[in-house]
Each structure stands twice: as C-alpha cells, then as structure tokens.
C-alpha cells in the first residue's frame, strides 16, 4: 500500500503539492488527473524517492520512502532521460545492472511488440519510439508499484493502443498502477480508480465504474465537473 500523509512540497515561490493525503491499494489501476502544473509529477517524484517532501510523509508498506523502496517502486518520467550514447539494448542492460526485478526476456518481448530494434541509438529515436522505449523498460521490471507519468504523450493513436496493452500486461492483483495523463478518454477504459489533483491539492478519488453506474457519468464528465472553474488557458 502506498500512503501519502499530509504531503507538501514547496519550491522557491511556489507550492507544488499542498497537503495531499490519500492511499493507493494493490490490485488497482489509478489515473492521476489534473491540469498542467497541478502537482501530479511532483507527487510521483516524491513517491519515487527522487525528491523529498517539505513536510508530510509518503509511506510504502508502512515504511517511509527511501533507497530501499526504489526496489519495489518503478517510476517512468514523462521526459526522455536516457544517456545520449546509449542504444535501446544499452538501456535494458543498464536496468538489468541496477534492478534485480528487471527481466531481459520480458524487455526483449516488449521491444519486439513495440517494433523497436536493440541496435537503435536512443538519441535517434522519434518521440513516439522514445515513449515506447520508456514504457517497455519500466514495465520489464517486476515492481510492486508502477508510476507512469504521461506515458501517452507525443504518440499516435495506434502506438497508444500498443503502449496501453503493454501497461495492462503488467497489471495483477498484487500490483498498483498509477498513470497520469491529460488524455482522460484514453484512460477511461483501462483504469478503475481516478485521483483528481486540483491546484496542488487532493480533490477526490473516484471509482470509475461507480461513476458510470451510480452517477451516470463518464470519467471525462467528472473531469469537466471537477476542473470547470480552473483556468485552462482559454479552453472552457
């Protein structure tokens, strides 16, 4: 279980995350939804142990986030982060060197599915290919928690389908999947819970099926309802 207790992160002149308290249970696929700058990425980075909260605590299985929890929590950044000199094959070797739960066989399989060649240089990849590579190398880990920050960014419709299939392959009862995205409709069919982050604050967690059956509302409708008063840069 991943638990966020009154977590706040402040940067110079800005509060990126403001007192977020929530719990993520195994066996669920969560969508983390909110406009740009709402604090989704910052919260994920804190849960991944990349940055520390200003106050509050994130706990995994009752233990504060630390170097040890990185063995169980896999994080995928939205930006490309591999070294320029690497090939697709080198990326897999790097993960194999550092993560005991990394499976080279699964990586090879996912690369084949994504039609990515191991000899390709990372710096020569298109944004779509890069997105596939990031997802492939992250999902080739047998982690307990996967946090994917905007995995569908910059990729075409067909590639989105294969990326989502790749993500779903890793879902099972013992794992927690957290996916942030602006593409609410794309996530609606695959997630069962949705977390809303509004103005750096927790704005609710909803069961997607319950929204449909009890409130007769899609996830996209709920998104519009929650964020209707947020400045979306001119889009209403």
């Amino acid at each position, binding site marked *: 279980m991943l638990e966020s207790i009154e977590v706040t992160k402040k940067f110079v002149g800005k509060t990126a995350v403001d007192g977020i308290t929530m719990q993520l249970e195994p066996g669920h696929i969560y969508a983390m939804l909110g406009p740009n700058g709402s604090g989704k990425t910052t919260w994920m980075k804190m849960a991944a*142990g990349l940055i*520390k909260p200003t106050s509050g605590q994130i706990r995994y299985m009752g233990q504060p986030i630390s170097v040890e929890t990185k063995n169980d929590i896999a*994080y995928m950044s939205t930006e490309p*982060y591999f070294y320029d000199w690497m090939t697709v094959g080198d990326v897999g070797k790097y993960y194999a060197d550092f993560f005991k739960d990394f499976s080279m066989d699964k990586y090879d399989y996912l690369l084949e599915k994504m039609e990515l060649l191991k000899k390709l240089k990372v710096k020569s990849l298109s944004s779509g290919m890069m997105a596939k590579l990031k997802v492939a190398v992250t999902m080739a880990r047998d982690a307990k928690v996967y946090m994917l920050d905007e995995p569908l960014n910059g990729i075409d419709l067909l590639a989105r389908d294969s990326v989502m299939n790749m993500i779903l392959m890793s879902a099972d009862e013992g794992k927690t999947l957290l996916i942030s995205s602006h593409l609410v409709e794309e996530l609606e069919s695959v997630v069962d819970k949705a977390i809303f982050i509004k103005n750096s604050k927790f704005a609710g967690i909803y069961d997607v099926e319950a929204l449909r059956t009890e409130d007769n509302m899609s996830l996209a409708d709920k998104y519009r309802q929650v964020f209707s008063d947020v400045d979306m840069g001119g889009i209403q």
Partner: protein
Amino acid sequence: MGNLIKYEFRKTWIIKAIILVFTAIFELLFLAGTFSKNEDIQATGIIFLVLTTLCALFIIGIYGIFRLHKDITTKQSYMLFMTPHNSYTILGAKLIENAGSILLAGVFYMVLALIDITFLAAYNGEIVEALDLINEILGEHYSIDTYRFIMISFDMITVWIFNIVTGFFAVTISASVLNGKKGSGIISFILYLFITGFIEKLHNFIMDCFTSADMIGFTTGRMVYNLIYYIGFTVVMYVITAWIMDNKLSV
C-alpha cells in the same frame, strides 16, 4: 557501487581515449627525435608530452565536474537517482572514478617520464650532467631525484583531487540550495575559490607553526603531512556534498 563506477567510466572514456591518442603521438615524436638524433623533433615531443600531462590531469578533473553538473541539472539525473542507491554512493562512485582516473593518469605519466628520462640519459650522457648541474643550483632542499619526483607528483595529484571535490561541492550547491536563484553559478564559483583559498591558507598557517625555515622545500615529513591534510579535507568535502545532495537536491 561497482555498476555506478562502471557507468561513470563509460560516460568519460572517450575523453580519456583522446588524451591517450595525443600522448602516443607525442611519445612517438619524442622517440623518433631521440633515435634520429634530431633535437628539434625531440624537443617538440618533450614539450608536448609535458603539456599533455598537465592538460590530461586538468581535463579529466574538469570533465568530472562537468559530468556531475549534467547529471544533477538535466533529466539524465533520473538515471542515477532512480536506482536504489543513496547520494553518498552515487557521489562516491563519481569520486572514485574521477580521483582514480586522475591518480592512474598521474602514475602513468610519472612512469612515462621516468622511462623517457632514463631513455634520454642512455642516449645522451650530457642530459645527466645537465640534470646534476640543475640540482646543484637548486640546492639540497629543492633538488629533484626519483623519490622526490614521485612524492611531489603524488602531492600535486592529491591537491588537485581536493580541488575537484570542492568543484563537486560548488556544482551541487548551485543545483540545490541556490537553484532558481539569480547568480547561482557566480556565487557557487566564488564559494569554490573561497574554500580552496581558505584551505590552502590554513595549510600554510599550520606549516608555518610546525616547521622551521630550513625545512622549506622538500622533506618526506612535509609531503606526508600534505597528503594527509588534503586527503582529510577531500573526505570532509565529499561528506558535506553528499549530504546536500541527499537532503536539498530536487532532480
């Protein structure tokens, strides 16, 4: 930690390979000049070998600082910090790789210099006489023999490694405590100059308190003190930098 060191080396091997190629070219030039008794070619080889030695140690160190800067200020930082290693291990791997490379390069150039001087002496007896004459002019405390040459070289390498770690500190301060603030680069550079200057002043002050005037120049005791002093402060700077990285750095 072994894997971290392996990848640190992987990030820097090209620059080291280039330095080695230049060294090989100038060594060949020196040997060609010596064999053909062409003093112009020989002198050119010697001058460029000396320059390459100085540049090699400088470039390896500076490139290490540049790599750290890139590793903590770009998205590539995830490659290090998402691994199950703490900042002490990550920085430790960088320090071991960089200091190890400088030390190895230093030993390599020391050995190369000793071989070349021996080689030169065997081919040209006048060189030995010239070195003896220089040592006579320098006097007892400053004259150079093989032992002194090695000790002084190690001393210089240790001081340089301390400077590199202070560079790590400055870069880390710039990317963490001062991140987003105006003039963070300049402030951290001034901090670097202040720390290295202060440590050197303190070193000289302690030396003045415990050594007499006739010990100026080379003594084994002085060299051992220098080594311990700078290795000690290298460790101190490493611990402070890793702590800042662990607690104040947002990647």
